[in-house]
């Protein structure tokens, strides 16, 4: 259906990244890559976003924040882990304060590897996420009572109308 795939709005969160992937993510918005021509908007607001883009490994402080932001995204939603740290924890995997990749806290749909991930790879990851998003929407319209996203992770319910 028209709309969803042409207008992915993104909320970007830095879990505990070294800023390498963050800078590459923001580079996607610059004139060279200009993702806005694909309808992408970098919103600061999870309630307006469709795609949750996380960079950096998850530590014990950012865990709750990630969960909170994920819960605030309206369905259908997808999560993109950008960079090797967000994908698996990377070189910080065994640090005492790091719990690993983003998928230790919330379900991740697309992994974008790289250190730092290249802007081309990030855009490719977002485009792949769009296919997942479309699938979620179909599942949602098929069974509206059941939330389309993976419920195997315990998340607190929000008031939804």
């Amino acid at each position, binding site marked *: *259906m*028209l*709309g*969803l795939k*042409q*207008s992915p709005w993104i909320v970007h969160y830095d879990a505990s990244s070294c800023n390498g992937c963050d800078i590459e993510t923001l580079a996607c*918005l*610059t*004139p060279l890559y*200009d993702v*806005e*021509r*694909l*309808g992408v*908007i*970098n*919103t*600061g*607001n999870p*309630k*307006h976003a*469709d795609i949750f883009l996380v960079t950096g490994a998850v530590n014990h402080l950012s865990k709750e924040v990630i969960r909170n932001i994920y819960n*605030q995204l*309206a*369905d*259908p939603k997808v999560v993109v882990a950008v960079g090797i740290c967000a994908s698996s924890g990377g070189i910080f995997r065994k640090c005492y304060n790091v719990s690993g990749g983003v998928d230790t806290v919330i379900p991740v749909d697309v992994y974008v590897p790289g250190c730092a991930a290249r802007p081309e790879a990030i855009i490719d990851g977002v485009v792949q996420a769009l296919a997942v998003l479309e699938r979620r*929407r179909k599942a*949602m319209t098929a069974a509206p009572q059941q939330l389309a996203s993976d419920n195997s992770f315990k998340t607190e319910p*929000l*008031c*939804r*109308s």
Partner: protein
Amino acid sequence: MGGLLAGADRRVSARMQARQGPPLLQPFLDVLKLCQKENVVVRRSQNFYILFFLLLMIFTGALFFTGADLLLVIFALTLAGIFFILGAYKASSPYSFVGAERELIQMMAYEPMVLLTAVGMYMVTRSFQVREIASYPGVLPLALPGVFLGFLFTLGIKFRKSPFDLSSSHHAHQELVRGITTEFSGRTLALIEVAHWYESVFLLGWVYLFFASFPLLGLVAAGSAFGLLILMDNVFARFKWQLVLKSAWVVAAVLGFGNILVLSFMHGAK
């Protein structure tokens, strides 16, 4: 129409930043998408207020374009704005709360000038009816240069363009998450977008009204006013609310009131 305006705005802005920009129909795609999303709310009643915001905005446009009383049009416009603010207050999140308060400040900033514009139009055409103002044979800004400039200034605030995008900004650089629209999502956010389309068509219609006796000139004026707003949007950084309030009132007092004062002296001299 409004959606196309919003699309043109985004495209022209992108070109000003040396980017290609989204397709012209992007705002329609955005609204389509928002209608397919889940509607997350804090309180259900907040969506009710937004419905009224949209309805009153359509009502304002309908009044204006059917040539009704200009004062009634302003009243309906203000009421629409108030419903939007009430909706944001209802959501009771700090971001939407501060956004709503800033929106109130913005209303206080532009309202005097908007009223003075109506008064100025009355002084020249001797009527508050949009129909009769539109059939006035002369070009209004010749008699109302100050009022016209002042009205252009308030347009920046009404469109929530930088440097006046206090309550909610469409740019990525935010200070209040999304300000007044923070707690709205899905279909309700789509309604807000559509209401803004109506609002921009109505406001540019008012610019056209200044030149209504020469339709072509009016269209050019409305188009260039919109272009000027986009240019300002990309050139200026955001003002603090004190500066917005002060500058808007100074503009209203000097350009708006001064213009009307001169007019009344001229009428007295006759």
